[in-house]
């Protein structure tokens, strides 16, 4: 049986080399699928069809299985994120402290549901399962930065600042 040659990189975008690096480090073993998808998402921000196909082929994982993994885990994102991301924590402590009201206020302001991005690609409104900052609930992440004991007004102000950029 001839030795396996991994497929060529999808483009000359340097980020693919990082992705390939993760796979090489793991000897192109199938169990590196999730690790590799993490690398793709941190390099590109999301996973598109080309990326999933490339990773599946490189690791010799059936495409159906790769897609199954991508859609099984909440952390993986199939759509490009907006320029800014407002993530509202939906953990128990945040729920008790009224995170649902924050979510409703943000949805109303942006006119989108949680998990969506505004039409102009400006702001994504996301939901986190729990970021572990429960002692400062309710918590939101503004572009990944944790802000605790947030009021709806503070959050809406941040959204305004992003909207006028």
């Amino acid at each position, binding site marked *: 049986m001839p030795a396996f040659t991994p497929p060529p990189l999808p483009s000359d975008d340097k980020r693919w080399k990082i992705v390939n690096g993760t796979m090489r480090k793991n000897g192109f073993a199938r169990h590196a699928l999730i690790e590799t998808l993490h690398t793709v998402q941190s390099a590109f921000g999301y996973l598109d069809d080309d990326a999933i196909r490339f990773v599946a082929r490189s690791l010799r994982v059936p495409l159906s299985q790769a897609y199954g993994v991508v859609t099984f*885990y909440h*952390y993986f994102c199939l759509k490009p994120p907006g320029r800014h991301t407002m993530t509202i924590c939906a953990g*128990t402590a945040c729920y*008790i402290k009224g995170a649902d009201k924050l979510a409703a206020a943000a949805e109303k302001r942006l006119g989108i549901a949680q998990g969506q991005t505004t039409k102009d690609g400006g702001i994504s409104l996301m939901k986190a399962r*729990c*970021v572990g900052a*429960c002692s*400062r609930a309710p918590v939101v992440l503004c572009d990944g930065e944790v802000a605790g004991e947030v009021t709806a007004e503070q959050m809406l102000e941040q959204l305004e600042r992003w909207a006028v950029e």
Partner: protein
Amino acid sequence: MTIEELEQIAKTVSQENEKYDFEVNVCMDLACVSQGADRLREALTKAAEASGKNVLVRRTGCMGPCSSGPLVRVDPEETLYSKVNAGHAEAIVSSLGGQPVPELQCDLNEHFDKQVRVVLENAGYIDPEKIDDYIVRDGYKALLTVLTEMTPNGVLHRISESGLRGRGGGGYPTGLKWGTVAKAAGDLKYVVCNGDEGDPGAFMDRSVMEGDPHRVIEGMAIAAYAVGASKGFIYVRAEYPVAVARLTTALREARRRGLLGNGICNTPFNFDVEIRLGAGAFVCGEETALIASIEGRRGTPRPRPPYPAVSGLFGKPTLINNVETFANVAPIIRNGGKWFANMGSERSKGTKVFALTGKIANTGLVEVPMGIKLREIIEEIGGGVPAGHTFKAVQTGGPSGGCIPAEMLDVGVSYDALVRLGSIMGSGGMIVMDDTSCMVNVARFFVEFCMTESCGKCIPCRAGTAQMYTLLTRICTGVGTMDDLELLVGLCETIKEASLCGLGMTAPNPVLSTLKYFRDEYIEHIEHKRCPAGVCNMEAPVEVVA
């Protein structure tokens, strides 16, 4: 690395530290950083340099009372300052050697007095990115003692003698689990650390991994020696980037010092650890699902037996323990099994770390001896419910646990007692609710969580949680009937009995426990279309989720 070398490092570093007249420790845990602890640390470093005093400014892990953050502790006086910001840096530095800054001083004696720190003994005292800080506080001494002076059987015996039980929630005796893996046939075995703290509202494992990562690694290495494993994995949630970074640094440092790798401490023992990222699936806390995830597959559980101890990761015997369980190992080896068994209650030994959150004055991390009354944790350590509201329930065990009402607060915390109350110990989330929380809505919140987190493999869980959610939504929107309630109870029993894994088997707990203690709230919703806490919108149209 030999024990002599380790002691030499400890000696050199403590001599190094003694050169400083003062140590200013800044808590850099997530809660404090979100309030500007990083700017505070910079300001303190600058002020210390400018003052010409001999001051060491140190970044540490979680000190505990997050609601008082950002926290700073000045040693050797052990003065604790709360709600410090960068503007206070100069005042703190100039007070060194004189009187403490009165307006920042806080009195948390009652908060700390009842706590016993084993797992968190280093939290707030070491820089998590410096292995030497850990070594000074007896770090890796247990590992090297084990390798040079103890047989694997001796280690097993000591862990069994301690009575340590799994801290992930199940409470399986750790010694028994290790013994099974040790007995399993095979040259290649794995040790896996479960750091997939999926319980929303709990952050003990995050704080341990971020604040004292070497303790987890040392525990894993000792376990590997005891069971005959040579390879370890730490499975961490991707939502904890800081924990991943700190563990990565810790592993690199441990390798550099020869505390991981081949021939550790000039013995034939080889062990190394790799980090694997979770990707946001609660079910991956279940051990067979976790194994599937490390193997790069969807995190779906499989029926047991065979147990992972016999056939686990890549089909090999695998030991899986939670972060806090591993964090208890080194102190047990150092101080003896009896020392550990002397703490706690009859069948639950040692201490337990809880993440105390919700409607309570002192939120944060607490570590208490098992057997302590819930009331002591909530009223004395936690400072009770803030004025103007009354305590209603405390939720333990997350989506798999239950709500415990005020009249049960005098029960001592142990695995068995909490199960008798209809809840579970769980990983250690403890969420306090006051009269503004609607217990039906709380039950619905948890059921919604389990519904979205169900992996879909078995029908009782996949379809059952969705049906529970529909019924609870009916009740919460004022269209529920008494028949719905009866159906709900029947459904709970079925899901409990027939589900494949722990997620499904425990998913009805929040419903059953609230029904047991707060049945009148359900009745009020159904008969009078009224939500006593004013949370549920009874006029809303029913949203039925398919």
